[in-house]
């Protein structure tokens, strides 16, 4: 039976359970007694007992079933011809599985065609077992809940306990995700560092993963050029664009602009942050990069690259403007108005008040915002994948080609390499570095902003 049909039947059963239990509970009457639970609670109690146990069973079953099916197939006579465990054996088995499930029509290995009927039969058998067990569990659970539903039974407490459990479980997903990220990065990076020493990776200045010497893989996996490129594009060039524009926009919109202008311009600037990064990347590669190269050639730099750091950094800076602007906006708004009023009353002009009173007071908030913006720029991927170069160079020249950590992660993982090669694992080491750096930047930024908020509260 297809999984969706089974699910529909289970949902239907629990719906029946809900309706009947509710109708039954509505007729509960004991003279002179009031119940803690409404009829709906009895309905939910029975419905949950009907659907949750089979769902848990099916979830566990789906992890166990493939192994059971494979075991059944291996015990057939045809399986005796299989090669010993290894790549061939796995390939034949997976082909046979696809054939048996009707997802494939031809097979490369002849043996797979022989095994396919066995697969289909075993799959079919275990599917029926699972269906029967799930339905049995649904009926058993429903019946159990049904017999317990009596007048005076605290169905509400039971149901609410389950709901509370679901709430707690949902909020634990965030922790699980964080743990998942950390574990998967640390695990894969750990395997990388078994092959390449940490110091060679962190302090080596030569990066060319295309040709890795098997005897000394660390020699061509030194990530310093990547770190420099990331810093140069994300924290220098992008910020040279984003900080003045973001800060001045925030100042103009909060201090000078008419409320009407502000109401229109603020969302328009925020659209800049909502444009997908792939669009920025295409724009950078197609329009900005050739313009930057032409400019460089006109300035007499004939070797200027069309994948320059400047093009990627400029476009990234434009993308970051709204972040800087909204953080600056918040910190300017948090400066007590008495400071501003005092300065104006002393005869300072608006710009003098802003530059000499408000900005110094808001500085920690602005700095925090800039750090957050840097962490976003450092982790930005598509712009550099499409507009920056894949060649790692240590250079100070914005017209030269530079690469970044994110760009290299994409390049390393989208090639044809195997999952266990140092090349693939290097991507996880880079990812771990990126994760740690952005995490630190965020923590520092949030601490700075928090301290600053407390100063004026």
């Amino acid at each position, binding site marked *: 039976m297809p999984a969706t049909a089974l699910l529909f039947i289970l949902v239907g059963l629990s719906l029946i359970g809900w309706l009947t239990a509710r109708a039954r509970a509505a007729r509960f009457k004991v003279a002179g007694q009031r119940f803690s639970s409404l009829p709906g609670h009895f309905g939910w109690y029975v419905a949950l007992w009907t659907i949750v146990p089979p769902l848990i069973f099916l979830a566990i079953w789906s992890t166990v079933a493939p192994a059971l099916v494979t075991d059944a197939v291996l015990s057939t006579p045809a399986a005796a011809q299989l090669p010993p465990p290894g790549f061939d054996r796995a390939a034949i088995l997976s082909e046979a599985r696809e054939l048996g499930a009707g997802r494939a029509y031809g097979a490369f290995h002849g043996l797979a065609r022989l095994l396919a009927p066995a697969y289909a039969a075993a799959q079919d058998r275990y599917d029926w077992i699972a269906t029967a067990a799930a339905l049995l569990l649904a009926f058993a659970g429903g019946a159990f809940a049904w017999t317990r539903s009596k007048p005076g039974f605290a169905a509400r407490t039971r149901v609410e306990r389950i709901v509370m459990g679901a709430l707690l479980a949902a909020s634990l997903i965030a922790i699980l995700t964080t743990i998942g990220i950390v574990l998967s990065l640390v695990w894969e990076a750990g395997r990388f560092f078994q092959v390449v020493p940490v110091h060679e990776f962190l302090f080596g200045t030569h990066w060319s993963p295309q040709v890795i010497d098997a005897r000394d893989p660390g020699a061509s996996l030194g990530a310093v050029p990547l770190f420099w490129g990331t810093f140069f594009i994300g924290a220098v060039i992008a910020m040279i664009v984003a900080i003045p524009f973001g800060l001045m926009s925030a100042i103009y919109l909060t201090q000078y602009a008419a409320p009407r202008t502000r109401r229109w311009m603020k969302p328009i600037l925020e659209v800049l942050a909502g444009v997908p990064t792939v669009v920025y990347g*295409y724009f950078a590669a197609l329009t900005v990069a050739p313009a930057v190269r032409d400019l460089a050639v006109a300035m007499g730099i004939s070797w200027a690259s069309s994948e320059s750091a400047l093009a990627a950094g400029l476009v990234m800076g434009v993308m970051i403007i709204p972040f800087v602007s909204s953080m600056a906006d918040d910190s300017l708004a948090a400066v007590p108005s008495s400071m501003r009023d005092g300065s104006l009353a002393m005869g300072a*002009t608006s710009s003098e008040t802003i530059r000499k009173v408000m900005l110094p007071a808001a500085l920690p908030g602005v700095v925090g915002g800039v750090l957050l913006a840097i962490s976003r720029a450092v982790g930005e991927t598509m712009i550099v994948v499409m507009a920056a170069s894949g060649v790692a160079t240590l250079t100070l020249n914005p017209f030269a080609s530079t690469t970044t950590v994110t760009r290299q992660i994409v390049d390393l993982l989208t090639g044809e390499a195997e999952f266990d090669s140092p090349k693939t694992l290097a991507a996880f080491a880079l990812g771990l570095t990126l994760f740690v750096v952005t995490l630190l930047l965020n923590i520092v930024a949030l601490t700075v902003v928090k301290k600053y908020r407390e100063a004026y509260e």
Partner: protein
Amino acid sequence: MSKSLVAQLPTGPAEPAQRVPTDWTTGAMQGRIRRRYAAERRFRLMGLAAVTLSAGFLAFLLATMLWQGIGGFTETRVTVPVDLGAAKLAVTPAQLDGRGADLALAGAGLEGIVDTSASRAYGKDGDNLLSGGAWLTVREAIKADPSLLTRRATFDLPVASPIDVAYKGKGAPEAEAMVARLTPRGVLSRSLNTGFLDSADSTDPTRVGIWGAFKGSLLTMLVTLLLAFPIGVLSALYLEEYAPRNRWTDIIEVSINNLAAVPSIIFGLLGLAVFLGTFGLPRSAPIVGGLTLALMTMPVIVIAGRNAIKAVPPSIRDAALGVGASPIQVVFHHVLPLALPGILTGTIIGMARALGETAPLLLIGMRAFIAAPPRGLTDPATVLPVQIFLWSDQVDRGFVEKTSAAIIALLVFLLAMNGLAIYLRNRFETRW
């Protein structure tokens, strides 16, 4: 007493010194004021310039995409007379009814006949004129009207990519020459490219479409929404309404805030290592993309949800508790319905971000060339932003306008989603 600009503090019991008022009319003072006011004007102008330039960047970006991409929604067609009656295709009317019609017409050599007709009409390189899929147009026409097989008819057929590029703007020299030769005869025309909206990826830019990628995006977003929305709302409710103040709650809060700031590519690494590596889910499948994006979107929904829940005044909770509702009833009957508009707004914004996301999906293999729209959650698929990325890498010049056209489609969608979010916020948000 000396004349000082700074008022002296009174010393001792003596009378405070009379301060001479500043004479604002002197030349020096007037000059200072002028300079200060000029600085004020400059500063203000700089602010205005920053805002205008930032908005200008946006306008320039959008205008560039529109300018380059609008042509992608049209295609160039050329009028070709095809004498199907004379060609005597070996196809019986009965064959045209069933499902074998496509095969029968292809087997009868329809493609060759169309090419020959083009050569006959426009010279020996006439068959280079037509798009590889031109004969499909004839095939569909025959299926719709089998009587075409017995007579001579003219068809408007899509042209090959180089001609298309040359006709719309600047192309390769040979294509330009061909267009210059054909234009006076009045056989070239432009029409809406419906194929762009209802077909999938292809190697021929005249035959590509966004439907395959769009369907992949829809399936991926469906998975993301089904996972991220309930989990996000439930954990926002828990953290805001029930969570005790202790270390565990702090850890949950810190991880949610950090997840919201983790670069998206890290989620791609997570998806690659956990969903593909450990769980062995299929590569390139919308379900893996949806799972990965759900983990990324969930923190956004939690943060928006908590703000919306926080905005519901405590008096409502107190009133509900006062008439005997249980804590669960208070939240699910009163707080959640009131906070829902805010939560939905945050959800839509989070989903819009997920819809435009590319990097994590590249890592889990959604960058394969996929020529058929996915039929299910486990079929290989690609999504709209990744399709844009793939087309932007193509060398063929015909892909430039297709890339920009796909970008227009994506932006229209994002705009619609954000517009809906703004509408919801304005329509349903209550200020207490």
